[in-house]
């Protein structure tokens, strides 16, 4: 029999976004870097285990491990992400998926949401997503990526973000992201909305005083490194991204100090960790 291929008109109006009936799942999507154990190396078990307590069944979660050193459309990047999300949805019979992203992980999700026809797995993923909680997403890129691409070498403590001059760093240059936002991605100013809501948490500053215990949450050396980078950034930044970039796509859910304990700002290293009550907000949201 000849093949009669996929013809799907996926109408979001009919998707079960309002009622979270069925099986709710949670996915954690890391940022730039090639992860093989993001639970330990990127998020920490304390963060993940705290947030997933908000699920009806806390066992229904996944931590994505992909190669986000690549351009977002690469098979090893969004392709890998689509594969792991599809497997999770299928294996757990997920009908309602909340996705938590950090940094460049937000761009990976926006690639899928903006290009539903690029990969036949994308429509099913999109239809299952309730919303995306994007922690410090690099939606408009970062001047630090421009600097690294032109030859600036930052200290080793920033290696997890900028150390490899990878395709992902090249892509996150501000001028490159402006092009991708205008041509391949939705959800930024002047562009149509994404098919699912994309809620950004914005980090506004970096505390790196050795006398301040808050500087040690997320790793003191990482926060000190992010202090230097602020010379490339606006007054409002998390040490890696300007606030305008973090809030540049979708909706701003909140700026850190609106709700964090203290109130303390979330540096880019801290917005992926259970610092200052961030995990509790995420837990209550899933």
């Amino acid at each position, binding site marked *: *029999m*000849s093949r*009669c*291929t*996929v*013809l*799907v*008109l*996926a*109408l*979001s*109006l009919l998707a079960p976004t309002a009622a979270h009936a069925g099986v709710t799942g949670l996915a954690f999507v890391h940022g730039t870097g090639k992860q093989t154990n993001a639970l330990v190396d990127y998020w920490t078990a304390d963060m993940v285990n705290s947030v997933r307590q908000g699920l009806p069944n806390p066992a229904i979660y996944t931590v994505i491990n992909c190669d986000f050193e690549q*351009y977002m*459309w690469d*098979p090893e990047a969004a*392709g890998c992400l689509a594969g792991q999300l599809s497997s999770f949805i299928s294996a757990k019979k997920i009908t309602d998926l909340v996705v938590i992203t950090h940094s460049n992980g937000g761009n990976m999700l926006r690639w899928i949401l903006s*290009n*539903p*026809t*690029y*990969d*036949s*797995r*994308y*429509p099913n993923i*999109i239809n299952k997503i309730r919303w995306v909680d994007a922690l410090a997403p690099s939606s408009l890129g970062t001047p630090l990526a*421009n*600097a690294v691409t*032109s*030859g*600036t*070498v*930052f*200290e080793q*403590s920033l290696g997890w973000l900028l150390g490899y001059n990878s*395709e992902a760093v*090249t892509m996150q*240059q*501000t*001028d*490159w992201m*402006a*092009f991708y*936002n*205008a*041509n*391949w991605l*939705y959800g930024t100013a*002047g*562009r*149509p*909305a994404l*098919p699912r809501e994309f809620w950004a948490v914005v980090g506004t500053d970096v505390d790196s005083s050795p006398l301040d215990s808050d500087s040690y949450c997320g790793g003191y*050396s990482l926060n*000190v*490194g992010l*202090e*230097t980078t602020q*010379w*490339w950034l606006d007054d409002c930044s998390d040490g890696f991204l300007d606030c305008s970039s973090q809030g540049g796509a979708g909706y701003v859910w909140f700026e850190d100090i609106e709700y964090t304990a203290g109130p303390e700002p979330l540096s880019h290293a801290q917005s992926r960790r259970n610092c200052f009550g961030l995990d509790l907000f995420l837990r209550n949201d899933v």
Partner: protein
Amino acid sequence: MTCTTRTCCLASVLLLLSATADAAPARLLPAAAGDLAPKDTIASPAPSTAPTSGPVRFTWPIDQATDDLTPAAPHRAESTGFTRTLTRAALHRGVSVPVSRPGALLKLSPRPGRTLTADSLVVVDPGGRVHTIGDGLRRAGSDAHAFTLDPALGAGTFVVRAAADGDIHLDVRERGSDIVLAVQAAADVVLLGDSVRIHASVARGAQVVPGVRFTGRLVDPGGRERGALVRGRDGDLHAALPTRAEAGPNGALWTLEVTAEATVDGLAVRRSVTTAVAVTVPTARFTGAADVDQAHGVRVDLELDVASASRYAVTAVLHGTNREGASQPIAVSQSADDLAPGRRRLTLEFDAAAIAASGMRAPFELRDLRLADQGRMSVLHRQARGLPVTAR
């Protein structure tokens, strides 16, 4: 949903035939200023690398005003600092560094595998006094090769000397300076063989700085220089694109590097910045022919002239008419399929239920009509106003 049974296939064919029977021929509006609309197609030797095959369509409603959807101008890149590559010999002799704002940050980055002897670093201020770390130079954070100038040293031309065993990349950051270099490409997508044009200016506040010397170059996605930027009669900077180019990574952009040198209030000022454009081979184009079917919502078949086999995607926003008689967006539709060379079609569908739920009515219009080569990550067509869909 995948159709795998004879019944499903037959139902799809009957649905297609019944829809086609109600279709009316139409033509796209002429491209307007600011649109991207190639007049011809060119076959590309670059391979198509789309990850999937077969038709996929997806439509989603949007709740936005027409004013929320504005064609974005090409990115405007701004800078209050500069970067520069210093040779080992030049750095040993001493390199002049213009600083227009007191307290600037200087950062020296050795190339990978090279070293800079931090203790060898000295800076001579405009008055001829020599400074070291802790004496006029303040270390910035924990970075061994980044320091700020004591604001008391003022502005002017400093000289930096250090011992290194290779080239050094220098960053000068004058955060908060009101002297800003801005560059903006005339278009963010340029066809291979055409010319890139960018507008560059240096301003202090609202005042344009006169007598600026601009230099720059065009760099392809592989990092190779592909020509200098030259100033045209219109005052803008131009670079001619090659008529042929080796295929770089799909989706990677070309970079325009611009440096500006000027004198402001007797002080030397230097700024540099980059911006990016996509260089496209028009592997397919809309012929302008279309068929519109309003039997069940709005269904539009768009005819393409395809020069190279690939996976192509068409996207558009359907606008309708609200109760006040104004145009308002309803939904986004995207449709992609693998297409061989020749005359082909892609179909956008906006379901009747989705249109009814929006409360909009005819006349409708397809806006923000786009065509992309997904297999080569190329933007081929962008048209703000694509196709009016009048009432039946």
